[in-house]
């Protein structure tokens, strides 16, 4: 395990550097996602599916972390971890152009099979933090406000916001009707 500990330190440092890069800016992977084009030349579906895929991968890593925390002495944890780290590599690389993320997964998969429970937990948690920042960057590409308005219409969104305790209450003099008078843009904020 001595050799794998040094390699784990190196990989953790690499993942943390990638996380710091995502904190500071968009990063190359997210730039590549923005360049993807799906059916009819649009990028909405590729972007939203990239977000969903990354979210699913993070859930899988969280599952590994939970197993490693609960069963730190079980030898099978390394096999499970390696497989979980390996599974999304091709999808991340070929479908979503998340090349740097896929490379991190590949290294984690190679190393994972040599680790004990504590080291699997450390690696999984490092990846979870990485995904927190990656998902935030991917989420930033998706205009949820505009999408919600397009989905439900200005009036309904405005009326729902108006009943919030920090918004204008429905019993206010100018009430929710006034709030919707400017195509949704007069929402109190």
């Amino acid at each position, binding site marked *: 395990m001595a050799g794998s500990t040094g390699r784990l330190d190196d990989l953790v440092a690499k993942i943390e550097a990638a996380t710091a890069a995502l904190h500071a800016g968009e990063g190359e992977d997210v730039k590549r996602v923005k360049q993807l084009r799906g059916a009819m030349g649009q990028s909405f579906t590729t972007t939203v599916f990239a977000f969903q895929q990354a979210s699913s991968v993070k859930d899988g890593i969280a599952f590994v972390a939970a197993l490693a925390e609960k069963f730190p002495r079980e030898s099978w944890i390394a096999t499970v971890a390696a497989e979980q780290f390996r599974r999304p590599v091709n999808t991340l690389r070929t479908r979503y152009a998340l090349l740097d993320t896929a490379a991190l997964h590949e290294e984690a998969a190679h190393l994972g099979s040599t680790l004990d429970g504590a080291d699997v937990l450390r690696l999984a948690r490092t990846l979870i933090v990485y995904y927190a920042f990656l998902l*935030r960057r991917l989420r930033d590409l998706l205009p*949820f406000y505009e999408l919600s308005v397009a989905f439900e219409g200005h009036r309904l969104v405005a009326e729902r916001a108006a009943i919030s305790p920090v918004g204008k209450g429905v019993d206010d003099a100018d009430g929710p009707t006034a709030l919707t008078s400017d195509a949704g843009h007069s929402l109190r*904020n």
Partner: protein
Amino acid sequence: MSMQKIFVRLGEAEGVAELFSDLAPKTCAAVLNAMPMTGTINHANFSGEEVSFPTRGLLWVRENQILDCQPGDLGYFVQGPAICIYYGALRVISPGSVFGRITTNLPQVQEVARRSWKEPGIRISLHVKDG
């Protein structure tokens, strides 16, 4: 013993939060240890009037997890990991470790937090109160 306080700057608004060192001692210590923290907020899509920003893994234990949050409550979401500001009405689905509450300038913070639903990318910083 006076309560430990931190500044929460959200866009142009700055609130002061009191930390719940008695209810969430480990989380408070981890948050203080990580100061200053910066990022950009995103508005919650599901739970309601909540904004958050991702953080490093400050700690991996949960404490003072409550569903009935009050406006201005600060939470650390272990599963994120992320720091959350519960600024108004919401239905907490997956509770965070509530470690403090904004008690000064909350209306100004709420204004900015609410605006972030339409205007993502507003900057946030948490830092220790001077003096």
